[in-house]
């Protein structure tokens, strides 16, 4: 089922006019939590989102409650960074099943296509694809 918190954040973004949406997405981009020390130096092909031009890495680890995920996104890739932060904030506390069921539609639901253009949507879909994959794999490990 949809993750309540994420649904709220996506709706909030969609309700903004395009100029505010860019500002809000930039606010997200500024507030991505730093990658925990224990993942430093582990960035490699197996953790990279290959659909993105910029070097973007996702990590996941098992916790008593399920799976926690983290991201490393450069400041100079604000679109992906903003989107990743929104996903991160929206999915805290979510179950593995809910993460695995994340819908690709949320990119267009958030109104991102309108401000970024169709041609830039794939990096974001790549992030979602990668996230779902590592969450499921980590849970099964």
């Amino acid at each position: 089922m949809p993750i309540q918190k994420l649904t709220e954040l996506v709706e909030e973004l969609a309700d903004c006019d395009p100029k505010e949406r860019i500002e809000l997405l930039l606010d997200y981009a500024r507030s991505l939590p730093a990658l925990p020390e224990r993942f430093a130096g582990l960035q490699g092909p197996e953790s990279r989102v290959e659909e993105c031009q910029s070097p973007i890495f996702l990590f996941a680890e098992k916790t008593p409650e399920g799976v926690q995920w983290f991201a490393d996104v450069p400041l100079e890739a604000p679109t992906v960074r903003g989107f990743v932060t929104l996903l991160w904030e929206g999915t805290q506390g979510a179950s593995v099943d809910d993460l695995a069921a994340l819908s690709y539609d949320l990119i267009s639901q958030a109104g991102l296509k309108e401000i970024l253009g169709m041609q830039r949507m794939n990096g974001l879909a790549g992030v979602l694809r990668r996230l779902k994959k590592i969450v499921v794999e980590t849970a099964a490990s």
Partner: protein
Amino acid sequence: MSAQNYADPSVLVSAEWVQQHLNDPSVRVVESSGDALLYPMSHIPGAVKIDWHNDLQDQTVRDYISNEVFENLCRKNGISNETTLVFYGDDNNWWACYAFWAFKLKGHLNCRILNGGRKYWVETAKLPTTSDVPAHPTTSYKVPADLDWRDLRIFREGVLDHVKASLPLVDVRSPKEYSGERTHMEGYPEEGVLRGGHIPGALSCPWSRAVGDDGRFKTADELRAIYEQELHLKPTDDVVAYCRIGERSSLTWFVLKYLLGYQKVRNYDGSWTEWGNVVGVPIVKGALPSS
């Protein structure tokens, strides 16, 4: 001749030059980046944003904006016919070169590229940026009446003739796209094509080889080693460059035409998203130019 020995060093400006001309009303700095949030986040003080997709492309027909729309774009950004434009952007300036090329299509005379683009300005030179959007006085820009872009752009019929005449083509996509193993650039799968491969006879030379680690162009000698010693091109050749939609090949077009002084270089902006979908045109699969 500059230290880098470029054929036309005037088309490249350094970050330091741009910094010295930030308040020069005859110079307008233009950011053209792939990431649409970069400019709103930060940009060179006084720079305007011209988006390769939302501003320069017609949103209905696959083509560039009309002369009238282009005039309005320039007018509202404070660009006059005499303005020296300095383009820069992310991805080692590939979008900036695309905008440069599009402005040349519309006949703008004074176009330059900030060597190193955003990467060099932000990461190496560590020069100031701002999120303030400038308001420049509007102008009365006019596209010249005698516009002639035939030396800059080529359409698919022209490319077919070019192939039949065995004239050189440079495919600047990644090796996997060239061989046909992959039908789109990593990261851009939505620009779909039905066939993977390359135009018969095209030489493979990924665009990024022209750029160094800090985002600046390689020296003329280094560039000649790639395009002349490896690819066996000559400055007198009639060359066509292409990629997927014509953006990466704009960078190669810029390098061959201005940095190495090739006399006739054209960008095939239909590129693989057109050629790979056209019924009946010949293609070649695999790592070699011809089958």
